[in-house]
Structure formats: C-alpha cells, structure tokens
C-alpha cells in the first residue's frame, strides 16, 4: 500500500453509496454461519475502490472484512461508518492495520447488537406499532400508512446520521457506549428498554386461564383468572415469559424447543380445561 500518500479522502458520494449498500444489503445474503459478513463486505467495496486505485490493494484491504460480523443492522450502521474513516486513515498511512479495524468491529458488534435489538425491536417498534394499531382499528389503512412513513423516515435518516457520525468522529462516535460514560449510558438505556419491554408484554400479550369451578348450585365458585388478577394483574403472562426465559437461559433450551414445550403445555392445558381461547366461527 502507498503508505506515503497522505491525501486520500472519501467524498460524500462514495460514502453515501457505501451507506446505501449497508441500508439495503446488511442481511440480504444472511446465513447462520457468516451472518452479516457479506453485507459488510459489499458496503465496504465502494470505499476500498476509492481509497486504493490498485486492484491488489483492494484485495488486500478487503481481507479485514472477511471476519465474522453480526450486530443490530440499525445501530450497527455506526460501525460501518467508523470503519470507513479507519480505512481512510489506513490508506493515508496512519498506524492502523486490519487487526485494529477488526478488534474495533468485534468489540462493538456485541454491545450494539444487545442495545439495538432491545431498543429497536423491543422498544421503538412496539411503540410505533402500538400507536399505529390504534389508528387502524376498524379496518382503516391510516395506521399502516402512518407506520410506514414514520418508521421508514426514522430508519433511513437515523441510520444515515449514524453512518456519517461514525465516519466523522471515528471511534469517538461511540465513545459514549464504550468510553467513560459507557456503562452509564448502557445501563440507562437498559432501564428504558426493560421497562418498555415489560410494558409491551403487559399491553399486548395476555395469557389467561379459563378455569372456573362451579359449586353444587351451578354458580361459579372459583374464577381462577380473577383470583390470579387479584394477586398480580397479568400473573400468568409474566410467569410464562419467565418460564421461557428460564428454559432458554438456565437450561439452554433453544427457541424452537421452547416453543414446542409451550405447545405441549397448551395441549395439556386445553385438555384440562385450564386454557380455552374461546374460539368460534
């Protein structure tokens, strides 16, 4: 590589192209083995082509991006932006090599996956959907349209912002996640995430029992759901969730098996008259 040349700068067009490739392609060629690796390479290509005129340098440079990569594709955009700026520094002969880049990527992808999944999938999307569902009750398309517009705008401009922030500030862009304030910010975000996830569970999921015991006079003698509600509203819902959590976390049961166990529980519950979704045509 031309270590002496100090004048490689990425123009806005190249960066935008790289961003768009990530925006559209982060997971298009996903596999359980390499996950987002190819999406990442595809979005780095425009950068490498620009920075390294010689084909052989490009080939050398791409090697850094063949390492396994997976993170939350929304928040993770910032990492792509950071590597763009690191790659530029490397092209300009700064003391950065592929390993440095990969250490950064490997170090960030974990926390950002965790934060992103809980913040985007667990917090933001349920809030947006919750609002939109209310608007679409009664069969109105309003809610769906609102959701499309609101989310696509947030996602596109949000990710774009993150990409360029990553490019401009490099590692500092996420210093609030890994630097001094790191633990604090993540802890605070975790509080919001946890509380909203709890709220989502209570608002949208409602596991109930239909068990009622009748006295000799035919009157209801025990309405179990009412009793459970008087203990703690939503008790069954929260218990089933904790049970799934326990299975997966403490017993290392996979999600699929957890679901099958729920099928068994449901079947037994239905047979015993404990569960009855009250279906009818």
């Amino acid at each position, binding site marked *: 590589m031309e270590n002496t040349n100090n004048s490689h700068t990425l123009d806005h067009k190249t960066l935008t192209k790289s961003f768009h490739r990530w925006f*559209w392609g*982060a997971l*298009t060629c996903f*596999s*359980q*083995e390499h*996950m987002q690796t*190819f999406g990442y390479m*595809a979005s780095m290509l425009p950068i490498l*082509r620009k920075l390294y005129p010689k*084909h052989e340098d*490009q080939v050398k440079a791409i090697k850094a991006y063949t390492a396994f990569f997976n993170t939350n594709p929304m928040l993770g955009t910032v990492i792509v932006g950071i590597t763009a700026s690191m790659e530029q520094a490397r092209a300009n002969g700064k003391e950065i090599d592929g390993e440095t880049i990969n250490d950064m990527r490997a170090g960030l992808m974990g926390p950002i*996956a*965790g934060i992103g*999944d*809980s913040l985007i*999938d*667990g917090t933001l999307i349920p809030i947006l*959907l919750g609002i939109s*569902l209310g608007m*679409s009750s009664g*069969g109105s398309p309003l809610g769906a349209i609102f*959701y*499309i517009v609101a*989310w*696509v705008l947030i*996602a596109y401009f949000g990710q774009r912002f993150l990409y360029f922030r990553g490019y401009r500030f490099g590692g500092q862009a996420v210093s609030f996640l890994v630097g*001094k*304030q790191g*633990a604090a910010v993540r802890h*605070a975000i*975790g509080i*919001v995430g*946890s*509380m909203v*996830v*709890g*709220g989502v*569970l209570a*608002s*949208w*999921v*409602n596991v109930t029992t239909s068990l009622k015991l009748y006295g000799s006079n035919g009157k209801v003698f025990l309405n179990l759901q009412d009793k459970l509600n008087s203990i703690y*509203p*939503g008790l069954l*819902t*929260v218990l089933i*969730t904790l049970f799934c959590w326990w299975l997966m*976390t403490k017993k290392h049961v996979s*999600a*699929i098996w957890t679901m099958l166990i*729920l099928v068994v*529980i449901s079947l037994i*519950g*239905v*047979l015993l008259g404990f569960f009855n*979704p009250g*279906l*009818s*045509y």
Partner: protein
Amino acid sequence: MTINWLQAAILGLFACLCSNSCMAGQAVGNYTIGRPLVGGLVCGIVLGNLQLGIACGVAMQLVYIALVTPGGTVSADVRAISYIGIPLAMVAISSQGLNPLGGSAANLAKSVGTLVGTVGTVLYYAVATMNLVWQSFGWKDVHNGKLDKLTAVNFGWPWVSHALFSFLPTMLLTYYGATAVTALQTALPMDGIAMKTLFTVGGMLPCVGIAILLRQIIGRVVDFIPFFVGFTLAASLHLNLVSVTVVSLMFAVIVYELEMSRGSKPTNGTTADGPSDENAEEDI
C-alpha cells in the same frame, strides 16, 4: 373470494422482499413490508378488500408486536404470517361470510397466522441455509481477487434462495390454499382440541420473543425489576407505551447520574497522575 395466479405471484414477490434476511433490506423489508400491519394493507390492495386485509393484519400484528430475532434466532416468520397467513385468513373469513371486523374473524386470522408463522420458520432457515451456497461463491471470489462479483453475491444470488423458498411456497400456498383452508376448517373445527391448542400457543408465542429479549437484557436478578415495573405500570395502571417510556426516562436519568457519580472513582484513583486530570473532572 378467490386468489388467481397473478395475485398469488404478487404475494410471492412481496414474500421475497421481507423476512429477516430479505431482498428489500432490513428497514424497508423486514420492519416495514414484513410486519402484518403493513402486510394487511398490501394483501388488502392485492386481493381487492382493503378493510378485510387491514383487519386481518391488525389481528395478527397484535400477536407479534415485539418480534425479536437476535443472532438470527427467529421464533416466527413474518413473510409467512403476512403473505401466506393473511391471504388465507381473508379467503377463509369471506368464504364463511364472517363480519371482517368481528371477534370471530380476528380469532380465525390469529389462528391461521400462528399456524403459518411457526411453520414459516422452516422457510426462513431454508433461505439462510441456501445462502451458504452463494457465500461459498463469494469466498472464492475474494480469494481470487474478483471483488466485483461480491455485489452479485450479496444482492443477486440470494434471489434464487427466495425464488425457491419465498416466492414458490407463497404463490402455491395462497393459490391452492383456499381449498386447503376450507378443508382445514372442517378438519380442525375452531372448538376442537387442535385449534384451541394452536391458538393458546399463538397467544403465548410473544412470550418467547420477550424472553429472548430478556436474555439479552437481564444480567443479574435485580435487572428484572425495571421489567416488572414496566409490566406493572401497563398491566395494573393501563399506562400506554409512550407513557411508560416517559416514566422509564426518569429512572434512566437517575441511573445514568448514579453510574456517572460512581464512575468517577477510578478517576479519583488516578489523582496521583497530576492535578490537570482532576481539574478536568471538576469542570464537569
């Protein structure tokens, strides 16, 4: 209501666009086109009954409101729910002459959604697995320095995976599914064990999604507390999610300040390094 080949093909195309690894990108594909609420809009337009489509979408969306897929762990597949489940539910509801906005229609929609959503995970893993083939092409390209081909690997070849495991199943299932659904309804009456179980499971499935999320969030046992507080606020006080978020921000700020005030201890520990450090801290 019937579904013709053209309609079935359009639905198949939309199925290619969404899901977790999809052709329209995460933001637009997975999070927008894939979600039942939007799927209901699309199916409503394609099948010519907007209101029924939306109603089915809303019913199914309720079950999958907090779908999380950390590390590609998928508990239900949005492509199957939205573009197989919704069309079939629409056919079933209108063939039964049910009121699209009624509770029975919603129940039926949910049970169809649950069924195909769970089954659809097979499609999801099939696509992801087939992508390994194109990725193996990619590794060769990288090795041989043919970087230009990487774009095709990431954006082109996966269409083949989708043609096989998104387009075809969706098209066939929606085209032939109408009869199947009717047969299913006779075979599995709503008040039968199978349907009751299915729907009970459907109601519990979001718990798995939440549990997957919790696995990420919960480190120590005290981390459950904000989760329970959020649950209590919504379950006992019926706060909506925006309000829960507002309240959570209060605690988040406190926790942030708390950590920051504690986080300064290590810095205190380095006071020996020089007074400049200290002053910097005092400025904060």
